[in-house]
């Protein structure tokens, strides 16, 4: 698509082998999903080697970025009108710009057996790496467990969620999985490398590649409903000083964080774990409003 003043807007896809549509992987859809883009680039890099070695079945498509225009100018959403491409599916090829982008992408990634989206959440925070699936009646939790991530999380869609890629992929008969690698901005660290390995583990277990990577932990995934997560709130606002982070194990009564008075520096409140468990979600900003969910415990 031509832009009024910038370079041509391009979405690049990397297809490994022609023919069957076995797996589509979609990376950054928002301009701040740098981790998601990095992970895809690593997958492209390794798949290129595997293709040369004849170790993959045809029909794998990787789209590392759906939105380079926003990433290049450090905007999260479509820069012109601040709309979110991931809220535009299945798209409409005669509609608004981001509806057209969604339609073009959806046409390219439709009909695949498996669909993986590297996603981010609407609430800022860090997660335990997990697979998230919208409950549509078509969800396949057994296949989701093949990623070997600690959790497979199911959630009931709200009306607004019916425009997400994950939801629409499922309605159009693709087994769809949203992969949460933990963050957005960072590309270093073990979680990010593990996420790359996880995708290859999934492809190996579904028979798409002849390649195994043993360098990341392989979990027996725990299936949970999002509603089972225990929310931990701050009744007061202020500066949040965290002692516990995503993936940490906590015991009931253990202090997870303190809320500090932003003027006097004293502890306004200690946030204690209401239950034993694993920190599934952790608020990742240093400021908190009153009644903010700062942790979710699985």
């Amino acid at each position, binding site marked *: 698509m031509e832009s009024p003043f910038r370079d041509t807007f391009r979405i690049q896809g990397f297809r490994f082998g022609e023919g069957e549509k076995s797996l589509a992987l979609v990376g950054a859809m928002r301009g701040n999903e740098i981790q998601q883009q990095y992970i895809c680039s690593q997958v492209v890099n390794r798949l290129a080697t595997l293709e040369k070695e004849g170790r993959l079945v045809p029909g794998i498509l990787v789209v590392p970025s759906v939105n380079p225009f926003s990433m290049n100018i450090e905007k999260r959403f479509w820069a012109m009108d601040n709309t979110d491409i991931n809220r535009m599916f299945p798209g409409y090829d005669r509609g608004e710009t981001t509806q057209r982008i969604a339609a073009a992408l959806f046409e390219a990634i439709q009909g695949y057996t498996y669909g993986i989206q590297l996603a981010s959440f609407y609430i800022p925070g860090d997660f335990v790496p997990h697979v998230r699936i919208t409950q549509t009646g078509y969800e396949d939790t057994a296949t989701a467990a093949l990623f070997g991530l600690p959790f497979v999380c199911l959630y009931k869609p709200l009306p607004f969620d019916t425009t997400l890629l994950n939801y629409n992929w499922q309605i159009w008969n693709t087994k769809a999985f949203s992969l949460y690698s933990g963050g957005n901005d960072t590309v270093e660290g073990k979680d990010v490398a593990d996420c790359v390995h996880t995708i290859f583990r999934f492809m190996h277990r579904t028979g798409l590649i002849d390649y195994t990577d043993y360098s990341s932990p392989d979990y027996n995934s725990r299936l949970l409903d999002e509603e089972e997560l225990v929310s931990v709130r701050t009744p007061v606002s202020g500066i949040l000083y965290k002692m516990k982070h995503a993936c940490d194990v906590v015991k009931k009564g253990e202090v997870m964080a303190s809320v500090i008075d932003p003027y006097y520096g004293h502890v306004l409140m200690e946030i204690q774990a209401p239950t034993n468990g694993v920190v599934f979600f952790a608020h990742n900003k240093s400021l908190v409003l009153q009644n*903010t*969910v700062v942790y979710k415990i699985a």
Partner: protein
Amino acid sequence: MIKTVVSTALPVDERLLIKKNVINHGNQNKRICIVTGTHDDELEGQYVCFRLNQIIQQNLEKLNGTVEIYPALNPLGIDSITRGIPGFDLDMNRIFPGNPDGTMAEQAAYTLIRDLQGADMVIDIHSSNIFLREIPQVRINVNTADTLVPYAKLLDVDFIWVHEAATVLEATLAHSLNSLDTPTLVVEMGVGMRINHGYGNWLVNGILNLMHTLGIWAEAPEANSISTPVVSAGNRVSFLNADASGVFLTEIKNNMIVEKGEKIGEIVSPLTGEVFQTVEAPTRGLLFTLRAYPIVYQGSLLARIHQF
């Protein structure tokens, strides 16, 4: 009386405060609520709130019931020239009926619904966005048309658009309230970040007319001062989206009848002097939406026409 509907502590020495003005007179329990400022680049409702406040308080003896005026459902946005809620990804008008256990925005939405529920009428005033200019109109979901169109006709607008139901719109304030049997009308008029006094005065006149019909306001506006709107139902709206990216230039005015093939504008290149697209009306009808912001991408909405 000013009442605080939502009060939440922000991190540093400030509270998020959503306020309403409750004006009460007479011995009747009927209540009408005027809400605006969900999208905070939409300012037309500010003038309407101001004028209604003035007129009602200066003529209190004509009021028999309660008028509640909520000028800013999203005060952090309106004070920072932000359409959405600062620091929150979702559109505030896509999170209703809210969630008492959710984020600050979802909690606020939940409290607002509880506060508005049970009103005899809610008027939710929007003004498009910075991209589009709208004639004064009421938008109604087809599922509530039988109940709401008669009320909408009282509002002194030029146009009523009965649109198809969409799942995504179930999360709007209006849909949530209508689902709770609280009749709610959505008004769209003007353009983002600007105030059109003429449109505002028409709507104020219309709201007083509606209040009179509900028995809340003693005085009826002059009969010939209320417009008879065009009612559009059954998918008779044509959308004109840009086929090219560039600068959209138009000489045309909104709120006019256009003939099939009539030129609406053109999309041009300031770099080369080319005309990329001549935009023409695909049908004869009422032009009720027109692009206000000139820079367009392929797909940008340029105009909407109700087909005669």
